[in-house]
Each structure stands twice: as C-alpha cells, then as structure tokens.
C-alpha cells in the first residue's frame, strides 16, 4: 500500500514537469509582448527593449525555461509583469477565495445532488425518477456562465420587480459577505450536482439490488433504515470518488464563474493575466490549479484503493 502511494506520487513528478513545460511554451508562442504592457503604449522602442531585458525575455527560450524551473524549485514563481508583485503573493491573496467558492459549491452540490440521486433510485422508473434525471441532465447541459448570468437577471431584476423592490436581492458581483457567495456557489455547483445525482442513482440501484439489502429487508429492517443506513452508506464509496474528482473540475469551472461574478479568485486572475500577457502569473496560476488537480486525483485514487480491497495495487 505504502509503495502504491509512493509510486502514485512519484508518477506525478514527470506529469507535472511535462505540464509546466507545456504551459511555458504555449504561452510564449504569440508575439504579444509583456514588455509593452509594463512600459506602456507610449514607450520608446529602446525602453521596451530595456524592459524586455529586465524581464529576461531577451534570452533564448530554453534558457528562460531552465531559469524558470530553477526558480520554481526554490519556490519563487517570479514577479507579475502587471503589478510588480511576486506571483506567489498574487496567488496567495486570491487562492483562499477560490477554495472558499469551490468548497461551498461542492458542499452545496452534494447536499442537493445526493438526496436527488437517492430519491431517484428508490423510486426508479417513476415520474419522480424521470423528473429528477431531467433536472440532472439540465444541470450538465447548462453553460455555467450562462446560468450565472441568469441568476443575476433573476436576483437583481426579476425577483426585485415582483417584490416591488428597487434594489437587487443579492449583490450581482464581487466578494466579501455571505450574500456575495450565494449566486456563484449555485452557478458553479449546478454541473457537479447533476453529476453527483446521476452517480448516486446508479450506485444506489446497484446496492439496493444486492443480496445484502434483500436480507435486511427480509429481516424486517424499516425501509428508511434500509435505504439510508445500509444502502447509502455502501453506495457512497463511488460517490465520494466522484466528489473528489469534482473538486478538480470545479477548480477549472471556477475560471468561468469567477469571470461572471467578478469573484476575486485565481480564475479571474488567470483570465485577466491572459489579456495582459502576464506570463509569470499565467504560469503560476495554471500550475497551481494543475498541481491541485493532480494531487486531488492521486488522493482520490489512493483512497479508493484503500476503501475497495478489490483493487490491486499495481
């Protein structure tokens, strides 16, 4: 087991190196010049050249990558071209916001998605089941940024006008209070909620058909207890795996949600930095998200292996 875990983590090293390489090269493909961004549009070509040298952009690409990797290993992610602040600092300021949003979305998605899945499974092939699954499918089919915009229309325009108010019910954008959290959480959760509902349904159906549940029923265990104590508990193992995987996907989805709601997280930072060709920040954010994604995936794999003795550690 320990060996398996170790191997999984060692595995991540070449993958992350490859990923960092990909980020590095892809971002430098375009002629867009961060030196212009920092020197200003009015700067003389000499000044632009000067800034470029200061940023190390005049070096050949392989050397730039080498320097970059060396710095990364020392925990130095470079300096933002735009703000002049360390990238580490830029990310540190915003990462908690993104994690906060992701965490609440995950929680919200599980709180709604799992019960819907259970309900569907216990009422399989009824109209309740059909309705829940249509609901779930809508959740996967809706673009999350559009859902975000629709929530803004609803809470800032439609609902206030029904209630005869002159003010939005919830602040449409920004962060700071719990009210700010409501809309982005719902928008980001929708997709994940739908996937969890579908997963729960499938998993529950399998468990509910098992001999073990049949025995429990035969022994006269109350139905509620059969479903929740015996059924759900066992069905949850694959569900937890899915939830774990969702965490990474949500980190990606946060880019869109944060853009819609001007949520000051790293997703928004990434999108802004792309417009500005702020290479160090783009690299830093993408790497942080990717590392998080890879680590969560490993963690889920390991936990899954731990939970399910049928998995061979090879």
């Amino acid at each position, binding site marked *: 087991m320990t060996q398996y875990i170790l191997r999984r983590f060692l595995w991540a090293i070449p993958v992350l190196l490859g990923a960092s390489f990909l980020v590095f090269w892809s971002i430098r493909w375009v002629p867009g010049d961060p030196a212009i961004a920092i020197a200003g549009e009015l700067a003389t*070509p000499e000044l632009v050249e000067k800034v470029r040298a200061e940023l190390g952009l005049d070096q050949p690409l392989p050397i730039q990558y080498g320097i970059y990797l060396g710095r990364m290993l020392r925990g130095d992610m470079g300096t933002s071209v735009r703000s002049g602040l360390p990238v580490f600092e830029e990310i540190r300021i915003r990462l908690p916001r993104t994690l906060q949003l992701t965490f609440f979305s995950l929680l919200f998605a599980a709180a709604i998605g799992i019960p819907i899945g259970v309900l569907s499974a216990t009422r399989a092939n009824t109209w309740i089941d059909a309705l829940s699954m249509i609901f779930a499918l809508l959740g996967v089919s809706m673009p999350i940024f559009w859902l975000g915009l629709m929530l803004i229309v609803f809470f800032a325009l439609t609902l206030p006008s029904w209630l005869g108010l002159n003010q939005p019910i919830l602040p449409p954008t920004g962060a700071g209070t719990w009210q700010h959290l409501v809309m982005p959480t719902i928008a980001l959760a929708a997709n994940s909620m739908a996937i969890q509902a579908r997963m729960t349904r499938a998993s529950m159906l399998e468990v509910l058909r098992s001999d073990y549940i049949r025995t429990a029923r035969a022994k006269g265990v109350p139905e509620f207890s059969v479903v929740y104590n015996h059924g759900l508990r066992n069905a949850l193992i694959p569900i937890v795996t899915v939830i774990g995987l969702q965490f990474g996907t949500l980190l990606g989805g946060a880019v869109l949600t944060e853009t819609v709601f001007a949520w000051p997280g790293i997703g928004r930072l990434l999108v802004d930095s792309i417009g500005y060709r702020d290479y160090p920040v783009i690299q830093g954010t993408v790497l942080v998200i990717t590392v998080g994604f890879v680590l969560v995936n490993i963690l889920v794999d390991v936990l899954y292996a731990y939970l399910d003795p049928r998995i061979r550690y090879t």
Partner: protein
Amino acid sequence: MRTTRFWIVLLTLMGLALSACVAPMPAVEAPGAPAPAVGPKTLTIASGTDIENMNVHRVTSSPSFSVLEHIYETLFYMNPEGELEPLLAESLEPGEEEHTFILKLRQGVNFSDGTPFNAEAVKMNLEYVLNPDNGSAFAFLISRIQEIEVVDDYTVKLILDSDFAPLAAHLSHGALAMVAPSALEQGNDFLANNAIGTGPYMLERWDRAESVTLVRNPNYWGDPPAIDRLVFKVVQEDGARLVEVEAGTVDVAVRVPPAEAARVDANPNVDVITTPGLRTIYIFFNVTREPFDDVRVRQAINYAVDVEAIVNQLFNGAARVSDAPFAPPIFGYKPNPPYARDLEKARALLAEAGVPEGTSLVLYHPTGRYVQDALVADAVRAQLREVGLEVELRTLEWPQYVPFVRAPAGENQVQFAMLGWSTPTMDADYALYALFHSSEHPPGFNGAFYSNPEVDRLLDEARTTVDPEVRRELYAQAIDIIWEEAPWLFLYSEVQLTAIRTNVEGFIVHPNERLIATYADKK
C-alpha cells in the same frame, strides 16, 4: 469494517477541504465602509481597476494617477478648464541663454516624512525619470531637457536642446510629480510599495486587488482637505459599482455604462455627472497602402460611417462626435464641418477611385481597452457593408495590438485600425505631433504613415512658438489640412460618466480622467 473506513475517508476529505478554506483570508469587510457616524469623514470611490504600484514615475494608467496624485504633487497643475496653475513651482520663465528655462519653486514645502522639498529634489526626480534604467514610460515628455542645474535652494535651470513651448504643460503630467529624495534613494522596490510625497494625503494601506486607503497629511502645506480618509475600492464590474453607489456603500462610482446612466441619474440619492474626456477614438488608414492611398476612399469611408448614430444610439449620447482630430478642452482646438453621413457621396467617391463593390478590407481593433471598442468596430463594419465594402474584423489583445500597429514600414500589415489617443497635457502639440508629423511614422504613433510637408512645417513652428495666439493659428491651419486629407476615420471623443452620491460636494472629475477629492466634502 468497510463502513468505518468509509467514514474515515469522508472525514479526511472534508477536513482537507475545510483546512483549505480556513487558510488566511483577506479582510472580509469592505474597508472603510463602516465609518463611525461622528468623527472622521471617509469618502469611498469605486474604481474599475487596482493601481499598478506606488511608483508615480513608472505607472501608466489613469486609475493609478488618480490615487497617486493625492499623495504626490506636480510642479504645475492643469486645471479642468485647461489652464496651467503653479503648484510646487512658482514660475517657469525663459532664461538668458538660448534654450534655457528658469524654474522657481514654492518655499516652505516638506515631504510627509519631514524632508524638505527643494531644487535638489526637483533635479533628482527629473533625472530619475530621464534615466532609461528606471523605465519611466513618460520620459519622452521631458526628453528635450539636456541638463538640470541647481542654481540655489529654490531655483532650477533647465537646459533644453531647442525651444519648447509646451514645457510647463508637460511638467503638469502626473508622471513628473515630485517624490521625496529620501524615498528615491531607497530604490524601485521601495517605491513600488511606499509613497512619500508633498500632497494633501498619505498612504495608509494598500490591500492589493481590493482597495487603497489614504489618510490626510497633517502637515500639508496648503489648505487642509475636509475629508479625513479616502478609500479607492476596486470594483471591476460596471454593474457592481452601480449597485454599490446606489446602496450608498460607496460615494463615487466611475465609468457608468451609458445604457444605465439615465436610470441611475433618476435615483434621488445619486447624480450622474458628465465630463468631457481628452481621449479621441479614431480609425487610422494606412495611407501608403491600397486602397487607402487615395484620399477619395478615405473620405468615402468618413461619409459612409454614421458616427452620429453610433454616439446617439449605441452610447445613448455619451460621447462627442469628432469635429477635429482632438477634443475641445485641449488648447488649439478648432471645429470643422463634420463628415455627415451621405451614402450617395460615399458610393460616388468609391466609384471614382475605382474601388469595386465587394472589396474586402481588414479592420484591426483592440478589445476591452476603450469603452465598447469591439462594439464600435462591429458597427463600422455593419455600416461599410452598406456601401459594398466587406470588412473582416480582427481582434487583438492589447499587448499584441500595440507592437502590431507600431510595426515599422515593411513589416507593417495594417490596412486600417482603431486606436484612442489621450492628451493629458491638454495641448495641441501632444495631440497632433506624434500622430501626424512625418518624423513619427511607426514605430512612432503616426500609424497612418501620413506625411505632408506643410503639416510638418506648421507643427514644428508651433512647437517653438511662445505666443499662444500665433500657436493657435498655426494649429488651426494644420487641422484644416488633416481634416481634408482624412488620414483617419474620425470617430468621437470619450465622455466620462461618473455616479456621485448627492451628499458629496466639490468632487472633481478632471477631463484627463483623474478623480480629485482634495476639495470635496460630505454632508
């Protein structure tokens, strides 16, 4: 056994997620919002973007200057009417020798750390800006200065390479504000995060990407401002700024979207004020390239595009149709008969020039740089379609766009492209020279590659002429030629819409996009 395992795992996952969330969180409350009812007065301004950094010599954006010009002061101040007033300087007079100027300084001014403002400080600041190692984007404003001599504590002699009429106007630019020598000595890292100036406010704190808080400078040399604390709060979304100003959580909100202006103004607690801008938006033609090497084609496009409709319908009137290459508040402005929409004339001119129906053109434009820039490009495209020109739009991100439009002849691929030009010095020299003088072809800003010896002569002469009336006449002649030869599709100049709570008095929105709270008060 299996269930126990499951719960362990679930709790671990939850714990992990939770611990991630408990990580240090930036201050949650809106800074400055819960000001006590009595006591210090706080004015909160919702701005669209955070400042770049604290180094006034290196920043380039208007939001940065809006904050920093409360901390730092310039030698001269250009008031909103376009008149120069002495600030840290008392006067600037031509010296006895050729090409020299004598700068007299205000006495008894101290920086907020107690060090004195004097001739040595001026020399240090100007030399800092002129030193290419410091990467000051606005160094070109004073690039004609060859030498700076300290005559006595309060007198500086500036030696130029030629006469230069707009020097005092250039010295009013925020990028040439005076930073304490004690701060300059500590280097660029210090300057990026700290601010020591002579201004009415001092830096209290900067929560990156969230807000900048300034506090009144108790030792300010001038009249003390009424507001004790200024908060510049970063609210990126247009809609969110409006929500905040309407709810009263901020006092001022910048950049009201034109479509919302009327609605917000109807709110009894909020006024929307309109300030003419100094930025002119235009589409320049590469006059060295077909089909735009023919003046008739350029004029045809000016007749084909209905700028009036763009301004009135798309912007709800929140812009000013150009009748000159720059906006009225700028010295040297002279109106011209606008190219009102005339499709017949446009078609006739195109036919005369031999441009057939269905000719394809490529229009380059930036996105997110100017108010609704992409929308305007799309609108121009739609209107040129009506005279049989097929325009393909190509959008470039700003950092890609600038080198693209400034590519030197030979490498330059522009057919026609959109740009904006702001004239913070409020002088025609700044507004015309870089854009129309033949010495300024790319990599300069004359992206049109426009050259007319007569225009060159007029601009050169105006630059070295001191008499304002003579200068005005020279610029008027140059504008006449430029207007007729149409190296641009003349569009409009921007208008700033700012939402201000009605209980705020004396708040100034400067045409050069600076927000000035120094003379403001709150009831």
